[in-house]
């Protein structure tokens, strides 16, 4: 087994387009769930809104790309209002139920056959909408980045390279992560963030101190959803097309996984969490495939087609162990967690 290849592929995944997409989605959830205590299980719905907004506005209406971006952000605010108005006055569970259903409703509507001309139906939107985005890219889409003559002095394990397309998505995506995280850091240490953290602890106490709790929860839902919408833009640009079935509930739960892995209510939690999650997924995949190729695993135990499933079993097992032995995540504060038990 070529360990250099295994590690290189894993590192490429840790910084790659999937990591950046899930990182953005998890940052939005971190604001809602980590800091405000809102259970939004429909983050994928906000991502779908973003992806379909850029896709449809270019493919169907032939508008400039930035109009699609603005429409996506506006629609994600509308979606947050639709979800929040009926549920945010109720107990936390209701938001969870409504959001998980809404995510599915959006996916099912977009894949409906009657909308095939508009949204592409179950076949999805072809990638024409990506052209204006990649026209802005300084990288040759067929080339590899960074070029080996730039990183040749590094150990071979770190000779990471991506296609010009992916590299442009990563540059834009990680820049967004940086900007959004900086804004979050600024917000969380402000009095506004203090109100959110207090709502997470006990909203009645906050209400008794003269704060409009309902409106703060709404703001958190809108902003977190808007960040999810950014993840949707990157998802649409990174993949060759917008496929409705890529926006299933599993996406939300992967984003939650990344967040909990890194540690909730920490600015770097979702960033490191998403990197580690994709590293582990790629690593276990490579190791299993390599071991299979070397003949270390017999066909009775696992055949070549089962690698995809088995690797998620291993990832799941790892997560369970993490939650048992380090429930606060990698950056979480054990002392804070212990306060819940009192």
């Amino acid at each position, binding site marked *: 087994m070529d360990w250099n290849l295994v590690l290189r592929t894993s590192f490429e995944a840790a910084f790659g387009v999937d990591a950046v997409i899930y990182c953005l989605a998890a940052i939005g959830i971190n604001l809602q769930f980590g800091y405000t205590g809102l259970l939004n299980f429909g983050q994928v719905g906000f991502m779908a809104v973003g992806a379909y907004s850029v896709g449809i506005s270019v493919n169907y209406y032939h508008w400039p790309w930035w109009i699609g971006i603005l429409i996506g952000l506006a629609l994600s605010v509308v979606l947050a209002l639709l979800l929040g108005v009926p549920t945010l006055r109720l107990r936390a569970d209701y938001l969870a139920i409504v959001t998980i259903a809404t995510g599915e409703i959006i996916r099912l509507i977009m894949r409906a056959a009657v909308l095939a001309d508009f949204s592409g139906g179950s076949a999805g939107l072809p990638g024409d909408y990506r052209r204006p985005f990649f026209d802005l890219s300084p990288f040759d889409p067929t080339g590899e980045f960074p070029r080996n003559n730039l990183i040749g002095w590094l150990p071979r394990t770190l000779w990471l390279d991506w296609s010009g397309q992916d590299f442009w998505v990563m540059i834009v995506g990680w820049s967004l992560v940086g900007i959004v995280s900086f804004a979050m850091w600024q917000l969380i240490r402000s009095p506004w963030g203090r109100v959110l953290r207090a709502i997470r602890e006990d909203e009645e106490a906050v209400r008794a*101190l*003269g704060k409009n709790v309902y409106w703060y929860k709404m703001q958190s839902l809108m902003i977190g959803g808007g960040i999810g919408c950014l993840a949707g833009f990157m998802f649409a640009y990174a993949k060759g097309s917008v496929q409705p079935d890529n926006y299933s509930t599993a996406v939300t739960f992967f984003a939650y996984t990344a967040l909990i892995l890194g540690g909730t209510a920490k600015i770097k939690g979702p960033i490191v969490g998403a990197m580690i999650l994709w590293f582990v997924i790629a690593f276990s995949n490579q190791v299993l495939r390599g071991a299979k190729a070397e003949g270390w695993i017999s066909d009775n135990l696992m055949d070549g087609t089962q690698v995809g499933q088995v690797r998620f079993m291993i990832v799941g097992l790892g997560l369970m162990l993490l939650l048992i032995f380090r429930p606060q995540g990698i950056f979480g504060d054990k002392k*804070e967690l212990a306060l819940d038990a009192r």
Partner: protein
Amino acid sequence: MPAEAPFVRAQRGLPGVAAEPGSAKPDPILVADNVARHFGGITAVDVEHLEFQAHAITALIGPNGAGKTTLFNLLTGFDTADDGAWSLRERPLAGVPSYRVARLGMVRTFQLTKALSKLTAIDNMKLGATGQHGERFFDALLPARWKAQEREIERRADALLERFNLAHMRDEFAGTMSGGQRKLLEMARALMTEPEVIMLDEPMAGVNPALTQSLLGHIKALADDGLTVIFVEHDMDVVRDISDWVVVMAEGRVIAEGPHDAIGRNDAVIDAYLGSQHAALTTEDGA
């Protein structure tokens, strides 16, 4: 604290006020009329007329299930009344959401203390301040817009922590505090809103006897500073030392009002607490 104009601390026992349910007060700050709340067929609260004197400590007592906390919830907007009107300094409050009631100067605490565990004591305090620029989303992004105000709030919060003997816990999570300290923190935090009326729901519940005295002292000091204090308690003895006026509730109604001494002799109150059978027996014994 509040009351820019000089205030007159109410005299103990409110001389000149009739000791009867619904009696008129010389300077009423909070007035309730026909406030009713039903849970299914049960009438939890049915108060015909009740006035609270300004700058006084009024104890709201009654046996368990008398509707004291429900009345508190109704007056502060935490529950919705089926009927009735009430006003703070003649400003109608019926239908006003709880957070607005707090901003209007009537703040409450809870029977089950709501210290925010994962916030430090000082953050708990700073949360209480009203009208913070930094609590608006766009201002929050620009620290220059709220830093100065934040320093001022912090100064005020530190002074209050000092006063309530919590200064040493300043940077500890509220979740690590003892029950009594949490009660004090909740009270201090309520003062950060600069209220006119402070409503304490069973401030002594779950507090060890040694701390009760100091807690009572703090409550007394609030009234000396010009606040109007209304508090719920079910133990009559606790209220003896500090209450200027006592309102007794039973089965949702106000059954008696008066200075503490008069309340102790009131037959309706003894009936409510001990049952009418008991009253008859003690009279026969000549007790």
